């Protein structure tokens, strides 16, 4: 109230956070491992690809010491597929977020299991646990979009990671020559996608029109889109809540009444028992 600060993250904060995401680079020079707060970066040896945080990759790219391999989902074919899905296949919902990373099981050929996913313990665990990547620290942690390891570098084609818009903008601006297609083509596809999803964001509000629960589904919406629409959507849902508040209060009172009737109705008063049955 006193502070005019907006709630939630601003666009600049979101794009700053997006620079923590990992991208794949092809180094052009040798570079020793750097001891950063978040852990050591891999040693860079020219023909070998390595995973670096986006900010470091952009820095090396600007110094012409590395090329950035654009993530698979930024390929024009992948973007076109996503646009097709958003417009033709499912014009209502946003395209789903990347599936959680999974890995084939050595012990059971033909099956796969999610990494880091909670599962029923079985005798197979001892066999598979040793084959799991040693980098997966806690097998019981529950994954949600901002913390998925598959967000950027490993995100499969056809899915938009949480920080898609920020990363795509940064890569197109600073590493346009590393794109698999002319940067202009990727950019125009990206523009189309932004347009489609912004229109969808606005039409998604019609879900609140009916009388019922005031909720919106925002599955698959990226961080930047959230930052842009947070204040509007929150204001909208809050307004709907205020309008329905009195009706809600009466409904609760009636429920309370009915419940109390049920509790005290059993004291020999047959009429109220019959009422409860209705």
């Amino acid at each position, binding site marked *: *109230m006193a502070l005019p600060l*907006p709630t939630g993250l*601003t*666009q*600049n904060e979101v*794009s700053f956070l997006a620079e923590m995401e990992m991208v794949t680079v092809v180094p052009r020079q040798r570079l020793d491992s750097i001891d950063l707060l978040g852990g050591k970066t891999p040693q860079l040896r020219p023909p070998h690809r390595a995973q670096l945080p986006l900010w470091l990759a952009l820095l090396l790219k600007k110094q012409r010491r590395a090329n950035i391999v654009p993530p698979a989902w930024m390929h024009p074919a992948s973007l076109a597929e996503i646009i097709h899905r958003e417009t033709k296949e499912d014009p209502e919902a946003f395209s789903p977020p990347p599936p959680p990373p999974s890995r084939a099981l050595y012990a059971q050929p033909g099956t796969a299991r999610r990494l880091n996913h909670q599962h029923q313990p079985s005798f197979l665990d001892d066999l598979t646990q040793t084959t799991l990547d040693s980098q997966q620290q806690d097998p019981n942690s529950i994954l949600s979009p901002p913390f998925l390891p598959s967000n950027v570098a490993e995100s499969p084609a056809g899915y938009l990671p949480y920080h898609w818009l920020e990363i795509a*903008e*940064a890569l197109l*601006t600073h590493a346009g020559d590393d794109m698999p297609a002319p940067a202009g083509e990727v950019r125009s596809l990206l*523009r189309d996608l*932004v*347009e489609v999803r*912004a*229109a969808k*964001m*606005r*039409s998604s*509000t*019609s879900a*609140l*029109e009916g*009388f019922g629960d005031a909720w919106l589904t925002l599955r698959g919406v990226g961080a*930047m889109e959230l*930052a*842009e*629409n*947070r*204040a*509007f959507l*929150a*204001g*909208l849902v809050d*307004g*709907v809540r*205020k*309008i*329905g*508040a*009195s*009706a809600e*209060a*009466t409904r609760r009172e009636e429920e309370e009444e009915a419940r109390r009737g049920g509790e005290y109705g059993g004291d020999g008063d047959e009429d109220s028992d019959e009422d409860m049955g209705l």
Partner: protein
Amino acid sequence: MSYYDIDAILTDAEKIPCTFQIDVPDLGYLDNQPGHTLKAGSRVALPIWLAEMLAIANTGAVDMDDPSQSSKSFITFDLPSALGNDVVQALKADPRSVPLRDQSAHFYALATHMMELSEEPELSAVLRKTFVSRAAEIALHARKVGGGGSSYHGRDGGGAGGKGKGKATKEDNASNLGVGGAGEEFLRGLDEWERKLFRSAHDGTKASKEWMENVKKR
């Protein structure tokens, strides 16, 4: 609702039609008859804060002759004209074409306050539909305003305008020219809640545009 919320204070100052149930001596000046007794049954417009108190409080007088009349409230109130039947019917027909601000600058706040005082299940449903469908229109306008640059935000406003009603398609031409034409008329008819909503949607779009332009500079 905060104590210092200026909108809440202004909403409480909105007048609603009330009918006095009892004679009140020396209150005639409310009905343009100074010095006289305000007769029972006279209709006076009172601000909500006063009407609420008078409607809830009772006289406390005990009438021996007729116990049912012993503690009636000072006044009864009706819905203000802003929430009258004709407005509700117009909102049912087409929420976007009603300039709510002409009814009351704090239309929704007034309506929710009235719904707290008296149960109006139908009004609640109509208002909800009105608020949501107008919000979609507001979001559309919020993206257009000031979107005259080369960025795709302006283009988007125009492209998505076709999804609205017939009025929105007319505005497609004006999408890059800021507020203008029929859009201005719609935006002038927004009540305070909707203005806040417009502002937040507009600020979000603007901040995104600024960020988009800043990416290139860094």
